[in-house]
């Protein structure tokens, strides 16, 4: 399931995760979000950027439990909870937000 952004084809796997993280761009994130029916606002971007920072530091996409805990630590308890994150990304914050962030499918998401 490849994406087309600015006349360029970006390769993705059958679930929509891009295969090469270096092909990610903000425009691509918008395109992936559209296919996920997510209307990206500042709160969505905050989580997506958080995930990209997490990946940069640890080289993995976190499991949802770990993401929730890390968001709580860094952005506070009003954002670091399941309800808030699932409202932003109804099909799963780790799965959907990771896909939009250009990360692989989270480790521990079986």
């Amino acid at each position, binding site marked *: 399931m490849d994406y087309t952004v600015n006349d360029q084809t970006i390769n993705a796997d059958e679930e929509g995760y891009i295969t090469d993280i270096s092909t990610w761009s903000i425009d691509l994130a918008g395109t992936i979000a559209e296919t996920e029916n997510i209307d990206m606002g500042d709160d969505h971007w905050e989580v997506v950027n958080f995930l990209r920072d997490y990946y940069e530091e*640890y*080289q*993995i996409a976190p*499991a949802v*439990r770990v993401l929730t*805990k890390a968001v709580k630590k860094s952005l506070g308890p009003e954002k670091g909870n*399941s*309800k808030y994150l699932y409202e932003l990304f109804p099909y799963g914050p780790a799965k959907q937000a990771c896909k939009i962030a250009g990360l692989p499918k989270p*480790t*521990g998401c079986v």
Partner: protein
Amino acid sequence: MEDFEDNEFDGPIKKFMYVNRKAPYGTVYALEGLEVVLITAAFDQDVCLVFVDDGVFQIKKDQETTGINMKNFSPTYRALEGYDVEKIYVEKESLESRGFSEDDLVIPVEILSSAEISELMDAQDVIVTF
């Protein structure tokens, strides 16, 4: 609703030990072993990790992998704390015979003698070696 993804698990808690014996690259054992640890960390078991023999190379600082065209996954060991895997042991003899000290490692560990690791192994319910 609040905690529905938290995998509440009511079964008995077992003591799991993952033993890492091999160098990080050249075989797939180290990376696969790390993934197994991260995945099973979701099941609320009593988990510890041990690095012995060439396994100590897995957590050596300053790994440079561009020459072998592999991803340097050593930063991922630093994510273990976030996965609540906090009992990490290194065998003293393996570390010293390779000329390393605790300062050469990417994560804080507890250094135990070979005899102490044996005792710890005796206390486990499950031991998985990679």
